[in-house]
């Protein structure tokens, strides 16, 4: 399955989740989006977003510092 990657490194929250929100209408049910961000509240924001919009947060991988790689299933 193809995974779409969204790089939000350097963007301050809540810009990463807003980017995800912009992409969301184009994602079909079942699609995977991998988002990379380094904002300290990035993971929290993504979790909240997934919870509110009924999306599935599959995984969170820390990549040093504040940088994290999160996979979301639509």
């Amino acid at each position, binding site marked *: 399955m193809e995974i779409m990657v969204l790089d939000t490194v350097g963007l*301050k*929250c*809540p*810009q990463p*989740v*807003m980017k*995800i*929100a*912009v992409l*969301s*209408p184009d994602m079909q049910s079942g699609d995977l989006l991998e988002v990379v961000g380094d*904002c*300290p*509240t990035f993971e929290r*924001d993504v979790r*909240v*977003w997934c919870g*509110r*919009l009924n999306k599935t947060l599959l995984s969170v991988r820390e990549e040093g510092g*504040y940088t994290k790689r999160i996979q979301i299933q639509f």
Partner: protein
Amino acid sequence: MAERIQCWEFFSCREESCPVYVGREINCWLVSGTHCREQIQGRFLEKMEMCLECPVLDRNIDLVQLRETLHLVGLQFRGITRALRDRDRELKGTNAGLADGLSRSFEMVRKLCLGDPTARVKIDSSNEMLVKLEGALNQMGESVQEMVDQSHELAMGLCQHYDTLNQIAGGNLSVTAHEDSANELIAKLGQLINKETRTMVGVISDYRQAESDLQEKEERYRLLFEQSPVGVFHYDHQLRITDCNDRFVDILRSSREQLLNLDMNTLKDQRVLPALKEALAGGPGFYEGPYSATTSPAAISISMQTAPLLGREGRTRGGMGIVEEISERKKAEEDLAAEKERLAVTLRSIGDGVITTDMGGRVVLLNQVAESQTGWRQEEAFGRTLQEVFCIVDEKTRDRCQNPVEKVILSGKTEILTAPTLLVRRDGQERTIADSGAPIRDKDGKMIGVVLVFRDITDQQRLSEELLKYEKLKSIGVLAGGIAHDFNNILTGIMGNISLAKMFAQDAEKVRKRLDEAEKASYLARELTQQLLTFSRGGAPVKTTASMAEYVQEAVTFALRGSKLKGEFSIPDDTWPVDFDQGQFQQVIHNLVINADQAMPEGGILRVGLGNKTITAGEGIALPEGRYVQIWFTDQGVGIPRENFSKVFDPFFTTKPRASGLGLATAYSIIKRHDGLITVESKPGQGTTFRLTLPASGKIPPVQEEAPSPLVRGHGRILVMDDEAIVREVLGEMLTRLGFEVAYAHDGAEAVKIYRVAKKIDQPFDLLIMDLTVAGGMGGLEALQQLLEFDPKVRAIASSGYSSDPVMSDFQAHGFKGVMAKPYTLEELSLVLGSLPNP
């Protein structure tokens, strides 16, 4: 040394709180807390610069004060030095804490700047400023966190609403935006989205409903248009048909292809154009009548209504038309009109009066006869009560009759007026009517009015009265006829013998004279019997066509012989001929002259007039319509009282002592048998007029022949048949005198026998004279019929005392060659014999 000054004096200061003023201290520069230059000064070193410039120091300082001043300065200096050292140590400690604190603060700020809103610094410094700074930084962190949270909430809310709006845009109107958010704007935005969504859902729903309704309406309209039982078409301002339904196509027997876009300006039949254009002008149009189609050979009758097609803005967009084919309806209307006309003609032609009323007894209709009879025209009578228009009274009591309409309405049945009823016309004239009323019922059987039918029976009643009178006369006549017949036979014997006796007594003057008188008396007796017979069942006129004008004057003149009356005649030349029995009419005239003579015993003028008369219905004359000839006899006598009018023609009615009372009755009977009428008009003291009305003949009168000469003698054998011996004897004697050989038979059977024998023995008879009526035996007619079978050339004369016998009036049709009415004289016998056709 200058004099020492007091600073308060020098500066004119009276500051009572200044310790120098209070203590009156000259060495003011050594005192701390002085009030100089409007300030409270500190110790010397603090104000040294000011004091060094102050003139008071300059004036007041000496060595002692200088030593004191320097001592003070040294003290102060040492104190300052200690303070500075302490201060230095303190500062060194403070700097270390400050650095640490600042370092932590910087870290916190760095984290905060990196985006960690949770970064905080621990406040455990003794440095007040640092504590304040850390506190401030933590406060700032709180604020930043709050802002971040809010911004996150805002962003999250926006993301959610963005997602929701995307779904809505994708057509999912069931999605609901979140309305619970810490951010009021996001919450309100969610509410707004939901509200807008609901509104949109409502609008879409309404739109869809409206679309559905519109489709349904369009479908209904389409069905209405397509399946309408009438033809419907639309057209534009250029009169081009833009649409039409199937019925329209059917009516015009055409096709849709031919009719769509048809330019109606080019129609073959332009009669519909005005109605089409009226609709375009904004008003309704209408045409009804025949129409010839353009795109087919159809020639039909149509009813077309047009109207403008208006758009929403109210402007005319074109026109529309509704067309019905009314060919059948037109025919039905024409048939109905023809039927109505037929009924109206029938109603007009009905010979009886017809009046119809409603249930309230108010006149609805009168036919022409009713109008004529009542004197009311339909338009005048309509709506009036029946009593106003149809005034009827009892003929005898003169009381107003019950309203026949009321009777019918009450009973619900046909009612016939039984009592003789008089209808009083509007002008007061009265006519006898027979009338009946019947209910008018509608198709459900409900009574909706009354119809009266009435007939003027005035003439009919007169006819009935005449008939009754006639029947009375007839019955009496039967009796008189029998007597007259027998009397005639006796008279035949008397007159015959007198005739013979006169022949024998030619030289005996006196005997002849007596015989003449006896003969006259027998003539009178004969006249009497003639009158009786005429008056009885007999008297069928033997008519000939003649001019009454020629006959009347001669007959009246003859009848007036010996009378004191003088005749005056008014007789036009163009009087129509009449078929009449001249012999009988002689009686009539004779009787009327006698009557006039009796009315004017001292003499007078009898006026006799003639005239043509055409009788039409309603004239009140009891005779059928047609051409008639009237003869009137007017005397100047005393007149006849009104109460005797109905009796003057009764048999044996007379006001004269020596009259028989049969004259006018006989005249009445004769006129009746001629299908005529005799009437009397009279006023006491003003004379009387008898008017005879006789049907005019359709034939042309023959030219009069000359009368044959009397006593024609002959020869041959004659067989006489009569059941009366006296008649046989007298007739035989007469025939012998005339030169004939005579044989006798007493009835028809004997006559046949004798005739046959004579024929066989070759002694045939040349003539038979046979009585028609033989009591108890065969009469002359039956005998002749038998003789004709034996001998078709047999010649016979009929003889009878009944002049009414049909054989007498039409003897030739029965096989006879002549007739002789009893009684007869020798001359009359010879005339008949002489008039016989040669064998």
